């Protein structure tokens, strides 16, 4: 186990909220709270995944055809970008555990930059869909065998990626908050729960995308002709 190092947590009363007994209890409570919240987030997206599952089973032809209209490269690049941002986030948490606040700040800024790139690409895709009349509603037009069910696909697509993007935006807000904390040295080796928990949130949002990517972009076998 050369890669893992264990270190006792220094007990100090700094940044301890009065209703907790000690910092350890406070940190554990915070971590647990974040995980519980993420469990609720699973169910939040779960509702849409259920809808996806049902319609995918019912209308495979339409889903196949509609996903051919997705921008494969935009999706793939975005996947890489987002996983990259998870890496920088993980490294930021690492740096905060070591108390290196400068590193924390820069790594978080990198995370935010990658997150922004992701949203930029997403916006570009949305624009493309708009131009191609793939936004559900009265202007929806789809050249394919089963346009109505394709519209359901696109409704789900926009709902799922839209809520994912909303989570990204909230994530960016949270990250800028901890950048502020780290820059003001409010984060220490002993007290870095905020970084850790925002990190958990960020990774979770990444995880959602890890599922969205194959489900929306790679639904079925790609027809090489496009």
């Amino acid at each position: 186990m050369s890669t893992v190092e264990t270190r006792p947590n220094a007990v100090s009363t700094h940044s301890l909220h009065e209703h907790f007994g000690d910092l350890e209890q406070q940190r554990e409570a915070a971590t647990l709270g974040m995980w519980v919240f993420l469990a609720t987030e699973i169910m939040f997206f779960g509702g849409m995944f259920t809808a996806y599952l049902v319609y995918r089973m019912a209308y495979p032809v339409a889903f196949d055809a509609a996903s051919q209209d997705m921008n494969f490269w935009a999706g793939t690049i975005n996947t890489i970008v987002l996983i990259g941002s998870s890496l920088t986030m993980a490294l930021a948490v690492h740096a905060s555990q070591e108390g290196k606040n400068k590193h924390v700040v820069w790594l978080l800024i990198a995370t935010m930059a990658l997150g922004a790139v992701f949203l930029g690409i997403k916006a570009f895709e949305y624009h493309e869909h708009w131009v191609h009349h793939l936004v559900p509603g009265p202007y929806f037009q789809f050249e394919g065998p089963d346009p109505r069910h394709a519209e359901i696909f696109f409704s789900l697509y926009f709902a799922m990626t839209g809520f994912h993007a909303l989570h990204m935006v909230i994530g960016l807000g949270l990250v800028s908050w901890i950048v502020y904390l780290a820059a003001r040295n409010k984060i220490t080796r002993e007290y870095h729960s905020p970084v850790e928990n925002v990190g958990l949130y960020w990774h979770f949002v990444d995880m959602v995308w890890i599922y969205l990517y194959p489900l929306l972009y790679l639904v079925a076998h790609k027809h090489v002709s496009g």
Partner: protein
Amino acid sequence: MASAVHNVVETKNYLNSDFGIKSWLLTTDHKRIGLLYLVSITTMFFVGGFFAMLIRLELLTPAGDLLQSDTYNKMFTMHGIVMVFLFLIPSIPAVLGNFLVPMMIGAKDLAFPKINLLSWYLYMIGALLVIYSIVTGSADTGWTFYTPFSTQYSNSAVITAALGVFVSGFSSILTGLNFVVTMHRMRAPGMTWSRMPLFCWSNYATALIQLLGTPVIAITIMLVALERLFNIGIFNPQLGGDPLLFQHLFWFYSHPAVYIMILPSMGVISEVVTCFSRKRIFGYSFVALASIAIAVLGFLVWAHHMFVAGMSVYASLIFSFLTFLVGVPSAIKTFNWTATMYKGSVYLHTPMLYAMGFIGLFAIGGVTGLFLATLGIDVHVHDTYFVVAHFHYIMVGGAVLGYMAGIHFWWPKITGKMYPETWGRIAAGTIFLGFNLTFFPQFIVGYVGMPRRYHSYVPEFQILNVFSTAGASILAVGYILPLIYLFWSLRYGNDAGPNPYNATGLEWTTASPPPKENFHETPVVTWEAYDYEHMPPIPEEEPVVHR
């Protein structure tokens, strides 16, 4: 009776340690937040009750003469939404749970006090959105928001109402989150899980449902709003969308949600029955685990609301079967409460009257739930007044009576004052009578075939409806009484002292009202819950001596 000291010297407590509107609106004290909830929830109860009165008045005669049909539809919709999402779901957890859970486990506060305050603000935003939707025309979809009516055909304020439900849902999630983390991480030394009061157990079970169920309705209701706003088509049948998909997602939450409403009440009953029987609860671990079992099994039965919706017959069989399973832990609880009274030393104080009422009415509501779970019967009684009677028996006869029991039981702890016992008993009796007169006839009229959500009905149903309306008026009196005498008691009530009933439980070991930090020093628990063997009897009531 040594505790019946009259507080001549004002001691510092959570109520008088700070003054001013800011000290309330920005408080992170779980007790004050509990009170904020108490005020807002009581308001919403009377708003919902006002709608109920209008419904009952309209139904006095078969013709739709008092309200227009659209207005009537809005009335029962807003009655349902307000009562369910803004009153009953937050009621016990957010008022009594907030106040008591930290004290019962010997903690200074919930794990995340700021999030607790946030959850109240979210509740208020949700409530204001719903009120705004009422003012701007109300939703008329029924509290169930069924598609495609809600998405395409209704032209009422569905979006604001949906957003209100969405936002208040997050309030509920955050309360649940706080409870779970608090109970895992903040228990006082010696407060093991097997020593935890059953009220905490049931709030824990409730929190599980709030956490794992609420997000699903949040997204579902949001999709309805988006479908109205942007014409996306996830539930649109013209595009091949399945209207039953909405129902699955809706009930995935809303069935478990009925246990959000009843479980905390069950917790209250466990506390009250033990205290007023001066006895340890019968089968502590069975009652505790039954709460968890109800919470978990409750997630497996949702489609019993869809037996005639056009669902697969096989799915109906599965869901019917699973529904019966959830009846078992409820039966366990009912029998254990009854057995707790056996060979007890029973006091018939107001909370106990409510508790006994709860057990009986919950049993009726519960067994009629079994009727509904029986496939062959549900085909006939689905969406009739039989269902309306079933759920009012559980929600009003069960959950609301439990809430009343809890409010009376802990009123001295919360305010430091006793409620007037005689008036309390009178009100409890009035509510019990009015309630049964209101809702029992609905079982009959339902089986005879009167559909629910009917603004006018065929004449032969009238007599039973007249009973029902008469009962509702008595019920209204029954609810207004406590409102009056509880207010009265704030000023004129007897001083309660720390433990007026000589009850067990950590919350009774501290002053009434409790100090800001609950306990002057962290208690260490060395005894089991409900250790009534070592408690003196309940002291006699005293006359009002002090004003």
